[in-house]
Structure formats: structure tokens, C-alpha cells
């Protein structure tokens, strides 16, 4: 029924978008891949054989040149060749330096990396056994020179000077390319479905049992003449789950106004409280009952996690709400509240995207929205076409990722093309 609905609506477009999305993902990721996987800053690179330099380069005033104690340097020891480059597509202030070591040659005890500042002084940057280093905290657009001393016991050999080199900040961080592509694909799908919704295409969404229960639960509160308690999560506005919860709050309040049930909404975050209060007040207004809004029904409780749980427990046992909603982000206080709610005999509907708290909601609540069902809820409850459009986009985004998973795995197994590094963000 449903795939069919879409097919008759804008199927061709959708599938074309998905296919082009995958092609885009592959095509755009490829060129930027070296940035995504290269630059292992600490790994030693041993493949390039450095050319031997017989004479150490003399230092200058700040660090006097070492009198070369030739006899102690093991025979066959070669001098490192230093390669310095600006770290590509970063935020600047960093220069990456490598001095590959030939494995067939005698390995020095350690290297000393030195840097010449613009005022001509040489200073030691680090002493390391590795053959690469990333100098950080250098000013941008200032020229530096580098050299490396290889230490063999008391003796040392100094490399050629590399540079001048300067650190730069870059307009675009190519390492972030996979995200850009993913966002582009997602926005493309989103726009298509929103357009479809605007044109009035019927968008099917399957039944979500936890959400069908909302109506009955509020109806039950009406019959019992008891309030509805709504917990908008215990996180701040930065959490998207909180935003999703606030969207659901609007839908729940719409129904409580309709049934003339009292709502109680205690908050843990002052900003969330402000928004929640606005939502409740405006919903009362838009449903034509501005007078029925009780300013004392949405209130701020306390920012402390367990003090909040203690307060909510108190509300539960004293006001005995008939229905309790837990929507949003929860931590350990989830079970403290939901078990107390269960003991009072309330119908409880929970929804969170925190996998750690879901099992507790499942055991102590009557209905639980698992993970992204929370995000689907406001669209599902309101049935507003534009919101349903985004829900569809979310679904098809998921489909693309599923196809990617399978296709990439097949490519990796059958053709030994491991594309997974292209997905990594640097």
C-alpha cells in the first residue's frame, strides 16, 4: 500500500533522488579521500628511502654547531630528509613535519626537531623517537624553518634545513566533505518531499502503537477527572530530543484543552521552561480557551537532576495524575520517576532516544516510543503534511544509508574495494 502510494505520488523523483544521492556520495567522496585518511600524524613513514647527506649542516648563532664526533656515529647511518608542509585544510596554526627513516639503516636513539623562528633563533620543538611531528600553536602566515638532529648515543647528525614553510588557515575543511555530501543529499530529499506535501500528495505513515495510545490516555484522564503530567525530558535545549519533546507537548496540550483536562509540566532547564510555557499558553489561545490557561501549570522546578526527580515523585504521589508522559532526553532519573508513576497506577507513555534508559521505560511504562519514534511523533500526531514530508525524508535518508551499507560491503568483499575510509570525517 505504502510504497505504492509513494510510487503513484512522486516515486520516480524519489528513486531518482536516491540513486543520484548515492552516486553523489561516491563521486564527491573520492577526490577528498586522501584528506580523510592521510595525515596520520604519529605513524612513522618508512617507505621513502632518504638520500644520505654526508656533511651536517652547520647551525647558527643560537645553537652552536656540534663538533661532529664522526667515530661514534654507527656506519651506515643516514641523515633524515625533512619534509615540512602546512597541514592541509585545517584551521591553521599547525605544520606537519616528516623525516622518513630508511629501515635498512641504523636507527638513531632519538630525534630532536628544531624550529627556526622568523627572528633567526633555533629552538628545540621536541625530542622524539617517531619520524613525524605536528607543530601546533604557530602563528599563521609566518615563515619557519625546520631541521632534525638524529642522535646516536653522544653523537648526532643534523639534517638539511626544510622550509621556509608557513601555516595557513583554509576556507574549507575538505576533511568534512562526507558531512557536506550527506547534508546535501538529505536536504535534496527533504525539499522533494516537502514539495510533494505542498502539492498535496498523500504521504503514508504506518501505525506507531505508542502514539495511538496518546488519545486514549488523555481520555482516561478526563474520565477520572485527574491531571496529565508531562515531563519534557531532563536535558537542555541543546539536545534535539528536547526540541522533539516540546513539539509533542504542543500536540498533547491540544488534546488536553479539547478534553478540558488539567496539565502539569515541571521543568528542569530554564530555557526549556520558557519555551514550554509559551507552547502551552499559545496552544490554549489557538484552541480558543486562553482563559483556561493556568500560569501555574507549567513551572520551573530545579536544575539538579535528582532534586528534579524528587520533586516530580512528590507531584506524582500527591496530585496522582491519571496519565504521565516522559518525552525527551533522560538519564538515570528515568526509572526513579517512572517506577513511582507506576506505583501510583497512572498510564505512562514514554519516549526517549537514550538507549540506556529505554529498557527501564519499557519495563515500567505502558507504551514506549523507541529511539527515532520520538522524532516521528510530532508529525504523526499532528498529521501536518509538511511535517510528514520530513518524516518521509528521514525514512528515505535511512534507506540510502542502508543501501550504502550493503553496496559498500559487497564492493569490499567481492572487489576488495574498501570505501569505508571515505566516510570518515577528519
Amino acid at each position, binding site marked *: 500500500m505504502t510504497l505504492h502510494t509513494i510510487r503513484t505520488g512522486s516515486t520516480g523523483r524519489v528513486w531518482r533522488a536516491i540513486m543520484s544521492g548515492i552516486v553523489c556520495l561516491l563521486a564527491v567522496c573520492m577526490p577528498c579521500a586522501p584528506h580523510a585518511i592521510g595525515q596520520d600524524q604519529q605513524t612513522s613513514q618508512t617507505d621513502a628511502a632518504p638520500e644520505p647527506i654526508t656533511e651536517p649542516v652547520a647551525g647558527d648563532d643560537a645553537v652552536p654547531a656540534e663538533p661532529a664526533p664522526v667515530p661514534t656515529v654507527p656506519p651506515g647511518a643516514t641523515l633524515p630528509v625533512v619534509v615540512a608542509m602546512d597541514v592541509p585544510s585545517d584551521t591553521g596554526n599547525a605544520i606537519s613535519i616528516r623525516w622518513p627513516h630508511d629501515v635498512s639503516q641504523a636507527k638513531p636513539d632519538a630525534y630532536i626537531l628544531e624550529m627556526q623562528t622568523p627572528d633567526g633563533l633555533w629552538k628545540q620543538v621536541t625530542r622524539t623517537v617517531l619520524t613525524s611531528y605536528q607543530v601546533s600553536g604557530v602563528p599563521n602566515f609566518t615563515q619557519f624553518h625546520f631541521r632534525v638532529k638524529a642522535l646516536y648515543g653522544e653523537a648526532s647528525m643534523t639534517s638539511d634545513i626544510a622550509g621556509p614553510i608557513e601555516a595557513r588557515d583554509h576556507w574549507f575543511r575538505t576533511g568534512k566533505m562526507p558531512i557536506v555530501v550527506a547534508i546535501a543529499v538529505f536536504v535534496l530529499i527533504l525539499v522533494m518531499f516537502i514539495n510533494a506535501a505542498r502539492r498535496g500528495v498523500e504521504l503514508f505513515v504506518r501505525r506507531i502503537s505508542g502514539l495511538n495510545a496518546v488519545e486514549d490516555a488523555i481520555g482516561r484522564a478526563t474520565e477520572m477527572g485527574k491531571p496529565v503530567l508531562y515531563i519534557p525530558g531532563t536535558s537542555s535545549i541543546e539536545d534535539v530530543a528536547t526540541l522533539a519533546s516540546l513539539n509533542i507537548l504542543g500536540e498533547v496540550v491540544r488534546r488536553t484543552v479539547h478534553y478540558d483536562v488539567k496539565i502539569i509540566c515541571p521543568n528542569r532547564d530554564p530555557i526549556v521552561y520558557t519555551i514550554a510555557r509559551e507552547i502551552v499558553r499559545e496552544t490554549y489561545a489557538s484552541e480558543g480557551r486562553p482563559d483556561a490557561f493556568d500560569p501555574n501549570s507549567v513551572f520551573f522546578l530545579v536544575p539538579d537532576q535528582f532534586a528534579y526527580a524528587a520533586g516530580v515523585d512528590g507531584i506524582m504521589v500527591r496530585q496522582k495524575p491519571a496519565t504521565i508522559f516522559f518525552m525527551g532526553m533522560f538519564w538515570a532519573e528515568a526509572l526513579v520517576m517512572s517506577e513511582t508513576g507506576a506505583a501510583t497506577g497512572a498510564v505512562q507513555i514514554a519516549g526517549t532516544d537514550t538507549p540506556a534508559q529505554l529498557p527501564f521505560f519499557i519495563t515500567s511504562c505502558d507504551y514506549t516510543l523507541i529511539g527515532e519514534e520520538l522524532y516521528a511523533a*510530532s508529525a504523526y500526531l499532528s498529521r501536518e503534511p509538511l511535517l510528514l514530508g520530513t518524516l518521509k525524508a528521514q525514512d528515505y535518508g535511512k534507506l540510502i544509508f542502508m543501501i550504502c551499507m550493503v553496496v559498500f560491503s559487497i564492493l569490499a568483499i567481492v572487489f576488495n574495494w574498501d570505501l569505508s575510509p571515505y566516510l570518515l570525517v577528519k
Partner: protein
Amino acid sequence: MKRNLPLYLLFIFAIWGGISVFVGKESVHEIDNLLRNKLLLIVGAFAIILGLGSLIFHHMVKIRNKSRYWQYSYVTLVSLFISSFIGLFGGVRGEKSLPTIFGGLVLLAHDGQVYAFQNEAEMGQFKASPDKFVDPARAVMPLPSNVEAPLSRYAASSLRDEIELRASNARRNGIQFEMISPVTGKPVPFKKDFRIHIQQLFEGILVPCGSTMFAMLAFYMCSAAYRAFRMRNLHAGVLLVSAFIVMLGQIPLATAYIPGVYELRQWILDVPNMASKRGIMIGVGLGAVATSFKIIFGIERAWLGGDE
């Protein structure tokens, strides 16, 4: 205007926030840091006024209406005012104008000398690295040469006895900061050290309450396990069995004597748990992204409320 201005502002800030992630320019990052670390925090601080206003209003209404259990609202209001008074005027650790550390100076005995400090913060500096940061100009005084001024209260008793007595008190009371006595090598706080700065309220009231609330979870969990873990259907059964095995795998006795429990637990964590969590995470990630876009594009306007 009333709806669109906030929406435009939201959109502009969203574009800025989104773009600054992808731009590597130093100047952009500086502005972004300023916005995130300062300006938005300043804006957010004002919301707290609203929150507190709401809390106080809520309890005032309760008291005025003589709602059920209205008497307890006084407990909240009084404790709120007292604790914020202590905090605001005494500072987080009692180092501000309100002299909330009763008992005067803090003593530190070190290397055969006793130093006196105005407060713990000052002492912390000394403690951090004694060899470096002792500033003789500050209230640091070797004993017994000039005991007079700040320590005169202790002239009556021998200072050494005093220190030992305090050391034993402190040990029993579990006072945290360290003052090392050259005599006993034990902590040396004050004898009549009754500190009520806000940190003490935190440790004395918030910590026990919070940990006890948290600890109640153990009881709730057992009751949930007893009541809800029934093999009503396949899903509940699977949940039960998997929880059962993982719990067994947590017990050293069981892993030591029942073969295969540990491996099975590990398999559950590694295979089905991993797969499902991964699926949920991808789904939640997309759901979060979709919700964010809904808000940025103004499709979801619940936060604006209804009309107007």
C-alpha cells in the same frame, strides 16, 4: 514581525553555526568561539531569572491558596533564600565578603613552620607547589616567632597540642583539605571549624540527597524486574533472557563456575546489542537531523506557539 523576526534570527544563527563547522579560517573560529562561549551564555543566564521567578511564584501561589501541603513550600522558599544568600555573599568556597567560614584563618603546618591563610583558596596556592609559590609578603608566618596577631586566639593552649587535637577531629570528620602537621603528619584543620559556605551545603545536603535518590534505583529496579520481567510474549521473553544472561555474567561467582556464561554474555553484547544499538543510533541520528532541519526551515513552529 512577531513570528517572522524570531524565525529569521533563528535561521541566520543556524546558518552561522552550521557554516562555522566547515570553515577553517581562524577569524571565523574566533567569532564562533566568542558567540558560543560568551554571548550565548550571557543570553542564557537571563532565562534563569525566569525560571526562579516561576519557582517562587509557584510556591507563593501554593501558600496563598493554602493548597494541600502548602506548609512545605516554606521549606523550599526559606532554604532557597538562605542558600543563595550564603552563596552569593560568601562565594562558592566561602572566600567572598560574607565571612561564612567561622573559625577564622586556615592553618598549614609545613616543614616545621605554621602558615596562616585568609582562606582555602590562598592556601591552595601554597599547597600546589610549596617550594615555588610561597609569598612571604602574604599572611605566611613562621612560628613561634610572631604568633601574636592572627593567631592570638591560640595563645592559651600550646599550639602543638592544638594541632594534634584538630588533626584527630579532622580525621574523624573526614575533612577533605590537607594541612600537614610536622608533628603528626596528619591533617590539621580547626577544632571548631563550622563552615557553612555553599560548598559545605552542597556536600552536606545535596550530595546525600542526590546519592540517596540515585540509590533508590536499586530498589526500583528489583521491583521492576520482579513485576515486569514475565515471559508474556516473545519480545518480553527475549528481553528477560538477555538481561538474565548479562546479569549472570556480571557475577564473578557465576562466571567462574558456570561454563559459557561469560562467553554468552560477551556474545550478546558484541553481536545483537551492537547491531541494535547501531541501528538505533543511525535512526536517532537521522531523526535528530530531520528535527533540526524542521526547526531551521521553520516547518516545525511549535516553539512559537500558536497564532499571533
